[in-house]
């Protein structure tokens, strides 16, 4: 699973249905099943991550798989080994799945060409983060019943966000309308060709939306000045109750995390239990990743169609 782009609505619905089945299991005392007993999953994270890596680890363990976390910081990568050599070395150990995160767009595609096990993209540069989009969809679907016809605003640092790209694909495949809202300097060229409405102002961008997805300002990916200051960014693009009034009264607020409170989101909004589903997203993340692992290496591949 390398990205959302190109998946069919049936595949996505199938994965979401399968995810649903794990939510209750995850809430019960006995969380473990042995569907993936004897399978090996390697978490290969070239970029720091707490929630995604932990989420994949929890998901795989709850299905009974053996999980190995590769800490790239202390591995041969630091000794100058190339990405493909690392991939082929791990491949020789015959894992069933490798979960990869990398700071460069396309790195996971490249790696997948050199191994003969399942590769799951856990985020590649500014390209895609498919399981994040799936967990967002699951969260929305449980709250709203369906994605069809919803108006979703994705706000903030669109340029540097793989979450935005995966969500743009998924939401549109499932029949939602998507707006992207942010300062022009953080808007990628020709983003409108991906079928989205572009807004540079939160006041027009949030009008009548059903869902607001906030994105983190990814200062670590920025070379030079994209916005003059954090306080100016918060003033114009930070989500607070005032701006949220423009949206529909029952609007849901989402954030892929980690949040920068006081930068892109006000604490009052983030902690508003009536609106914010941010923690629910994290919970859904485990269920979605269990579903992906089961569909891809659980021997029930055909049940979900061509998800791989």
């Amino acid at each position, binding site marked *: 699973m390398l990205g959302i782009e190109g998946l069919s609505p049936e595949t996505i619905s199938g994965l979401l249905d399968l995810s649903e089945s794990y939510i209750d299991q995850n809430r019960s005392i006995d969380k473990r099943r042995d569907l993936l007993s004897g399978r090996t999953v390697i978490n290969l994270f070239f970029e720091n991550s707490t929630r995604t890596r932990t989420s994949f680890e929890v998901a795989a363990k709850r299905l009974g798989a053996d999980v190995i976390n590769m800490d790239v910081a202390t591995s041969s990568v630091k000794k100058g080994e*190339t990405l493909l050599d690392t991939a082929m070395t791990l491949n020789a150990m015959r894992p069933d799945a490798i979960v990869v995160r990398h700071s460069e*767009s396309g790195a996971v595609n490249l790696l997948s060409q050199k191994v003969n096990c399942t590769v799951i993209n856990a985020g590649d540069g500014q*390209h895609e983060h498919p399981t994040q989009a799936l967990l967002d969809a699951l969260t929305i679907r449980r709250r709203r019943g369906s994605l069809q016809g919803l108006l979703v605003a994705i706000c903030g640092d669109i340029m540097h966000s793989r979450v935005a790209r995966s969500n743009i694909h998924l939401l549109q495949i499932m029949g939602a309308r998507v707006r992207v809202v942010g300062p022009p300097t953080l808007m990628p060229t*020709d983003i409108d060709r991906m079928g989205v409405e572009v807004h540079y102002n939160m006041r027009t961008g949030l009008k009548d939306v059903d869902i607001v997805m906030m994105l983190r300002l990814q200062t670590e990916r920025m070379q030079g000045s994209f916005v003059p200051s954090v306080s100016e960014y918060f003033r114009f693009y930070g989500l607070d109750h005032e701006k949220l009034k423009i949206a529909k009264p029952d609007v849901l607020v989402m954030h892929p995390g980690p949040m920068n409170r006081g930068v892109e989101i006000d604490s009052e909004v983030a902690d508003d239990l009536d609106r914010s589903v941010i923690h629910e997203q994290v919970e859904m993340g485990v269920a979605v990743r269990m579903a992906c692992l089961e569909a891809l290496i659980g021997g029930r591949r055909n049940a979900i169609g061509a998800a791989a």
Partner: protein
Amino acid sequence: MTSGNILRGTPPHAGSTAYINAHIIDPTADRVYAGAVLISDGKIADFGPNLFASGAPYGIQSVDCRGLHLAPGLVDTRAHTGEPGEEHKETLESAGIAAAVGGITSMVLLPDNEPPFDDASLIEFVARRARQIKLTNMYAYGALTVGLEGKELAEMGLLAEAGAVAFTDADHAVGNAQVLRRALYYAKAFDALIVHLPQEPTLSGGTMTSGEMATRLGLSGSPPLAEVMLVERDIRLVEMTGGRLHLSKISTAESVKVIAAAKARGLRVTCDTAPPYFALNDIAVGDYRTFGKLVPPLRSEKDRQAIVEGLKEGTIDCIVSDHRPQDQDSKRVPFAQAEPGGIGLETLLPVSLELVHNGEITLPQLFQRLASTPARLFNLPGGRLAKGAPADLVLFDSDYAWKIDRSDIWSKTKNSPFDERPVQGLVMATIVGGRTIYCHDNFAPAAAAA
């Protein structure tokens, strides 16, 4: 397909050789006709439609060209090899072989090696190696600035004396206008040609051209604007200094427009492009294909069409191979980390012939862009049909259909952006100074029988 022989040991035939029954392409006369060429002592002694019309005279060695096209050999003014510094990617010898197979009889080598050619001894080194290798004629650029850093002028006078045919900082644009201004002024003393890659450095840091494709792939973009901004600046500097400037690797529609206007005003500005910019667009980097990562980046389809138009109208004077070998370690990495550049010596003619097959330009016009005009601009002896000119010729089958395949490539590295492309046109023999340096298997029997 490209199976043939490199011929190095054979001394030039002492007497005369007649190439009869050929379709001769004369770019300067703008004609194609059936005829013959007579070579004596490494030079063109005679040529024309009526020469040997009733058969070659007895006592002269003659080669039956079987109706194939015979033209001045290609003059490629932009090629990089790894020697010195990165011999594992390409040596002068392996580049010479690839050039011979590609029908290139003269090549000008870029100065961005390790060490860079900012010292006269390196220009002499290239000349000495070329004499040893005995294939294609090799010339070298001198660096425009010390260390190609764009700060201080290199010793242009001394480099010119050592044989540097022009000056450039290769794929590094000179961002500092004052430096380029002084270079253009200073070069006037030697009437030296300055070759510049116009890409505004502060805007061209992206890994591919800006646009929908870059946004979808999540790759950083270099806008087409980065090119035309420097084209416009450079033209103003030419106007101010009266220097001679050649802009290299033009890739955008806007640049073509601006250069056409500058030429109409009588400024001494010329330019070139490379096959990727008229034969490919940014779709070629889809799926993160690093062989398509080039400098400047592959542009949109609209830009590609404008480059074809520029070649047709003559705004773009020359076509260069922009040969830049990269090994697997440099290309089999994530796109943003991959080294830019593609090889081009062996594919220069067949890919450029697409312009002829598509009816965009005529064969003589193509050989103006590939041979006679670059030779004239760089003041090189080859590239034309004239009595007394060096017998640097290419014999090719313009209709031969084949598929570019990395396993058939003669270059040391295989990073062709045209890998797996079906093309039409293949070199059958390459002649430098009257000596056949390459002969394709299909043509070998005829040459041997002669």
